[in-house]
C-alpha cells in the first residue's frame, strides 16, 4: 500500500513561509540591544576562528625578557609572569571559551531534550523516574555539581564540557517536558497517529519541532551560564588545564599577588569573559522577546 502523505504540517513549518531573512531583518530593527549582543558574539566567534591570523605571538610562547611587561611595546595588553603575550592568550582563549560554552550547551540540550521528550511523551512511571533524577540534578547548585564532576572526571577540555553539560540538563528537560505534555494532546498529534505514524516518529517529527522556540531561548541563556561556569572552574584550577589559554585560568595565575604589581593581568581576561557573556545575554534577551514572549522575565 502506498504511503499516505496527508501528514499534518507542524506549526513551526508554516511560520517559515515568511522567509527567514526578511524575518530576521524585521526583528533586528525593533531590538537594537539584541543586534548589539549578536555583534559582540560575532566578534568573539571571529577571534576564535581567525586567531592565528590576528595575533603576532603564539599563546604558549614564553619569553622571560618580557615577564610582567605592561601594555604597549608591541604587546598591546602586556605580558604575564612567564612572558606570554596577553592579547594572544585572550584571542586564543575565545576558542576555549566558545568550545566549552557551545559544547556543553549543546550536549546539555541534547540530553535534556531526550529526557524531557521521553518523560513528557511516554508519561507514567518513566516520567516519574526521570523527574526524580532531574530533581536530584537540580537540587545541587550548578557550580557545586560542576566542580564535583570536573574533579571526578579529571582536568581536560572534554571533561570540562561534560562537567558543565550535566548540571544544565534539568532546565532543558523541564521545559521540553512541560511543552511535550501540552503538545501530545493537540489534534495534529492525534491526526498523525490516525494516519499510522509510529509513536517515535510523532515525538521526533511533530512534537519536538514545536518545542524548538523555548529550547533555543533556554540554550542561549545557558550559553552565558556555561561560559561563566567554565571561567569559574578554570579559575579554581579544576577546569581546562594548561597550556590551553583559558580566560578563567589566566585570572587564577594572576590572582591576588599580581593585583598590586600587574593590574593588566587581572583586567583584560575578566573583561573578555564579561563581554562575551554580556553579548550572549543581550542577544538571548532579544531572542526570548521574539520567540517566546511568555517566558519574558
Amino acid at each position, binding site marked *: 500500500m502506498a504511503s499516505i502523505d496527508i501528514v499534518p504540517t507542524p506549526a513551526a513549518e508554516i511560520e517559515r513561509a515568511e522567509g527567514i531573512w526578511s524575518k530576521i531583518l524585521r526583528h533586528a530593527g525593533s531590538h537594537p540591544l539584541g543586534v548589539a549582543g549578536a555583534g559582540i558574539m560575532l566578534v568573539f566567534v571571529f577571534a576564535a576562528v581567525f586567531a592565528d591570523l590576528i595575533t603576532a605571538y603564539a599563546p604558549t610562547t614564553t619569553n622571560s625578557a618580557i615577564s610582567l611587561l605592561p601594555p604597549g611595546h608591541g604587546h598591546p595588553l602586556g605580558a604575564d609572569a612567564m612572558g606570554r603575550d596577553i592579547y594572544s592568550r585572550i584571542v586564543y582563549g575565545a576558542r576555549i571559551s566558545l568550545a566549552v560554552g557551545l559544547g556543553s550547551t549543546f550536549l546539555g540540550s541534547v540530553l535534556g531534550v531526550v529526557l524531557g521528550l521521553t518523560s513528557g511523551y511516554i508519561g507514567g512511571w518513566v516520567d516519574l523516574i526521570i523527574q526524580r533524577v532531574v530533581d536530584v540534578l537540580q*537540587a545541587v547548585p550548578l557550580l557545586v555539581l560542576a566542580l564535583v564532576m570536573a574533579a571526578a572526571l579529571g582536568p581536560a577540555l572534554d571533561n570540562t564540557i561534560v562537567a558543565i553539560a550535566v548540571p544544565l540538563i534539568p532546565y532543558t528537560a523541564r521545559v521540553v517536558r512541560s511543552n511535550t505534555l501540552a503538545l501530545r494532546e493537540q489534534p495534529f498529534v492525534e491526526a498523525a497517529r490516525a494516519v499510522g505514524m509510529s509513536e517515535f516518529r510523532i515525538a521526533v517529527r511533530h512534537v519536538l519541532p514545536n518545542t524548538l522556540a523555548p529550547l533555543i531561548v533556554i540554550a542561549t541563556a545557558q550559553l552565558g551560564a556555561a561560559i561563566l561556569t567554565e571561567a569559574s572552574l578554570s*579559575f579554581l584550577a*579544576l577546569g581546562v588545564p594548561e597550556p590551553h589559554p583559558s580566560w578563567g585560568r589566566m*585570572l587564577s595565575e594572576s*590572582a*591576588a599577588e599580581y593585583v598590586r604589581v600587574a593590574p593588566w593581568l587581572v583586567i583584560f581576561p575578566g573583561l573578555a569573559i564579561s563581554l562575551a557573556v554580556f553579548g550572549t545575554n543581550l542577544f538571548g534577551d532579544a531572542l526570548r522577546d521574539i520567540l517566546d514572549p511568555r517566558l519574558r*522575565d
Partner: protein
Amino acid sequence: MLLTLFGISVLIFTMLRLVPGNIADIVFNAAGMIDVAEKAKLEKELGLDKPIAAQYVQWVSGLVRGDLGYSYVSEKPAIQEILPRIPITAKLAGLALGFAVLFGVPLGVLSAVKQNSTLDYVLRVISLSGLSMPSFWLGLLVLMAFVAWFGTIPIYTDPPHGFWNTLALYCVPAAAVGFRSSALVMRLTRSSMLEVLRQDYIRTARAKGASDHNVNYHHALRNALLPVVTVIGIEAAFLMGGLIVTETVFNIPGVARFLVEAIRWRDYPIVQNLVMFIAVVAVSVNFFIDLLYAVLDPRIRYAS
C-alpha cells in the same frame, strides 16, 4: 524531599568513587613511595578497600547518627572541620542576600515605573552586566581598588571581634557576590512589576482616582513581589556558586572555599558531607519558600 536527598547522596558518592586515584595514591605519589604493601595498609585503614556499596552504607548510617567520619587530610572528625566554617559562610550569604534585596527590589520597581526612560535603560544595562561579570573578577577588581586607594588589601587573617569589625570585613566580599544577585532580583522585580501594572485591577484603581504613588506601591508592588520571593529563595541556595570563588579570592575560611580545598585533596569525607550539607540547605530553602508563598498569596492554598 527525602527522595531527592537520597538521590543526591548516591550521585555524589558514586561520582567521587569514579575519580581515578584516591587519597592513598596522592599521598604515595607525593612522597615518591611505591611500597604496595604500605599503600594497601593505608587503604585498609581508611576503608577504601571495601566494596563501594559497603562504603556507602557505612557513610549514610553514620550520617543518620551524626557521625560524618574523619577528614583524610587533618585526621580530625569531619564535623569538627565543617561546623566552625558554617557561620562564616552563612554571614557572607546573609549579607549578600541583604544587598540583593536592598538594591534589587527598589531599583527594579523604579525601572518598571519609569519604563523605557533613560533611567530604565541605564538600570537594565547595569543589571545585565551584573549577570555577565564573574564574581571572582569583580572581587579582584575590588581588591585592586583597595590597593589603589588605600595601599592595602582587606585580608581575612584572624576571626574578627565585635559586630562592626565583622560587618566591615564581610561587607566587601558580600557586595562582590551580592551584585549578581541584586541584578537578578532587579530584573525580576522589574518584569513582575510590569506584568502586574498591565492588569485590570490596576486600571480600576487608577479609574477610581488613586494616586500614582498609591497604585504603584500599594496595589502593584505587593503582588509583584510574589515571584521575587521565589527567586530570592532559589538565589539563596545558588549563592553558593558565587561564594566558592569569592571566598577563594578574599581568602575567607568558610565552607565554600573548604569544599574546593577538599576536592583538590580528594578528601572524600569532607567533600561528600559538604555537598550533602549544601543540598540539604538548598532543598529546605525551596521547601520553606513554597510554604511562605502559600502564606503570602491567599490565592495559593495547598490542598489539605
